[in-house]
């Protein structure tokens, strides 16, 4: 069926990409001297703000500093400074907290045009429900990496409380011990759409290459691309599970989601195959180099009799 894919589905996307070519300048920037002068004015009244940025990557650039490629000053972020100097009312100066989602994106994107930042505008679910930059990041009095408000490994739990509770289940990824972080798997780089499930499931492979294949004999579910809950998560609950090894169901349950017990398992050798868990024999469940039925290549040696004496286990 692969050859039958209609290329017309690509026409519109290609057009959008073509439109993105030939971008032009449409913004405002300050020279280092301008930034320094305006910042000096601000600090006449707000010197505590400079102190709050002292240890941060947003530290106000000294006019004598010739090494930094980017100069930072108060007016980079706070619009309306000229009016504010004339009339120092809090209403006259812009702060991120008063901006809408798109206003915050506009503000931060003056410097931060990253995949993460751009995706907030296009496909990220946070952007879709108007969760702006300052929900997770803060600038003043913050020395955390990426200026996240809290750099603890499970900071996301502040909003995702029910997901955080999954990490307290019987088996769980080691988030609470600090060995993995939410962002190790949930890469907020705009290449995935979590809610409507667009994305190849390569996240698991970052740590579990030994199980990722490709295998000579694949278990197709591992490559169930773009299906909600497909791939690894068809059988595993990645945050935490009431069962061992993050499995969705105990014992044979995960197998029976898609497979029935073959009749021969009930009949042959007095139904011996029904007395074991499926994976006791089909141990190469992620994929096999040995046989199409994903059986343990050493199965014969494990059993009281050698299956391969009568059965061809290979392809």
């Amino acid at each position, binding site marked *: 069926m692969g050859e039958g894919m209609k290329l017309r589905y690509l026409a519109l996307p290609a057009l959008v990409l073509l439109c993105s070519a030939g971008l032009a300048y449409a913004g405002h920037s300050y020279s280092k001297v301008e930034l320094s002068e305006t910042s000096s004015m601000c600090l006449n009244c707000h010197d505590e703000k400079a102190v709050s940025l002292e240890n941060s990557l947003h530290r106000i650039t000294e006019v004598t500093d010739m090494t930094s490629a980017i100069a930072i000053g108060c007016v980079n972020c706070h619009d309306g400074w000229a009016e504010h100097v004339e009339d120092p009312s809090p209403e006259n100066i812009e702060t991120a907290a008063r901006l809408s989602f798109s206003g915050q994106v506009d503000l931060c994107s003056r410097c931060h045009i990253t995949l993460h930042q751009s995706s907030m505008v296009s496909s990220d679910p946070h952007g879709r429900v108007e969760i702006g930059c300052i929900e997770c990041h803060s600038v003043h009095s913050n020395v955390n990496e990426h200026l996240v408000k809290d750099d603890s490994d499970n900071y996301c739990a502040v909003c995702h409380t029910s997901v955080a509770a999954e990490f307290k289940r019987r088996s769980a990824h080691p988030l609470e011990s600090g060995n993995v972080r939410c962002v190790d798997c949930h890469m907020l780089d705009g290449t995935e759409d979590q809610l409507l499930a667009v994305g190849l499931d390569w996240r698991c492979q970052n740590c579990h290459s030994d199980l990722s294949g490709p295998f*000579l004999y694949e278990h197709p579910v591992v490559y169930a691309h773009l299906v909600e809950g497909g791939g690894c998560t068809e059988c595993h609950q990645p945050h935490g599970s009431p069962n061992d090894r993050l499995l969705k169901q105990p014992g044979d349950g995960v197998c029976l989601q898609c497979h029935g017990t073959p009749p021969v398992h009930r009949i042959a050798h007095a139904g011996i195959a029904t007395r074991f868990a499926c994976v006791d024999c089909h141990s190469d469940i992620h994929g096999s180099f040995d046989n199409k039925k994903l059986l343990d290549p050493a199965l014969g040696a494990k059993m009281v009799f050698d299956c391969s004496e009568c059965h061809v286990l290979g392809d």
Partner: protein
Amino acid sequence: MDMKLTRIFVMLSGIVLLSWSAANAGSGSAKLSLGYTYLDEEGNLSVNQSTFNLYGDPTVSIEDILYRFDNGLRLRADLTNIIMNNRNLTLGFDKAGLFGVRMHHNQYRRFYSFDGSSFTRRHRSGGELWVRPHRYLKFFGGGSYVGKSGQMVDLFDAASTATIDVDYTQTYYNGGAHVNYEGRMFRAEFRGSDFTNNEDASRNQNCTSILLTAGGPLPKYDFVSVLGGFRRFATKYDSSGLELTSNRGWGGASLRLPENFSVKYSFVFDRTGSDSDLVKTDNVSHAVYATHTWPHLAYLTAGYQKDYNDDFEAQVQSNSFYFAGWLMPIKSLEFRAEVGTRAEEVTDGVRLVGDEDHFRHKFTAKYRCRDNGSLTLGVDSRTRTNDMLGSESEFTRFTGQLEARIAEYGNFTGGYVYSQGDFENKEQTFEFADHTLFGDITSRECHNAIVGFGATYYQSRRDLDVVKSSLRFSGAYRFLEFYHLEVKYSVFNFDDFLYTDQFDEYYTGNIVEMKITRDISL
């Protein structure tokens, strides 16, 4: 190898700090702590216990190291459990708008057998570097080395004496450039990895990917922003040449319209192929969302997504609908809701799992009191139905969380989550109902002392009978201006009441962690 890395890390920290201190005046701070962890464990250590990465030994840590030089350079480091096998070390050095370097090393182990004799240990070391030679241009790169070795036991059989040896290493590296020009960006990156299996050389493989991304507002139409990219991914076995490749183009556009309306569109095209068995897949996905915002009052979005999945056996088309919104009738009260559906239909050919329907919804209400905390209540549910397989799975979850801050007494954070799952397969059903209760109380500082108490209780019933709980008592005392004494006593318990043989699944752990910390000015 690991101790060597630790020494390198500590030496590097010292050398960097001393040399730059000598050359540039500055100021900084750090916390040096010495401690001891006492472990008393009994029962099935297994992979499930929360204490898997604790060791009963003396500990040395230097944490929260922050040194800022007068010229704006900044050093940050966290060296936790330096001399132990659960060490976690990071060291970074940067200057705003110029460059940044970060190195890290950590490791942990997981038990698999009842008595802890079978375990694996994973360690990860690496570093990242970025340099910005010009305000519009940034180069970045990095690499990491991961190793895992040890023994595992068969799944579902903690009592098994048969072990499986694991010994592999992975090397990752990446590099690229990022151009950022007044609201527009272009990024090119190369990533590679090598996997070496020391138990079976035929599993050795390498993986490469190339990623190109561009985006920004359209010229003369800055109410339209576009973002798109391409990625090529290939993984290949060294010995057999068996290869899996994936080419993906993706993009999106966002239109900001008058009256707080906006429209977003995104697409993905992905073609994955392999010369192994049963893999050749095309995917196309289009999604469009329309939104309207009533500033500071409400927000509403509606979306539609169409997916085409075409592989060696079938073509599947999916239609998805999505609705979400929030309402803030008053500033301190917020309601959020999401509903999504997805219907997958096999339009050509046959696939094992046939047609399938998905439905999910989520609703949360949050009350925030600026000075005293917040209360969150939520419910969410996911359902998957497959008539051909005769299977249905359903998850429902109720969540409540309270954060309370009372200046006179201290802080409380606690919550309760009830979740249930029902699986109906053709031959077998499985149900579970989970209760998770957790809470932490921390007192305010009084006579230089803070005390805390925390508890977690997890129970899974119906077709399972599992209880997992922990109690945590902690105390901290500040003395002689620069010193802190911290003591934490934790009790962990785990029982699986369905196992009744000699290897019944139980675990009890009593753990005392003590440390004395000195604040250091640098």
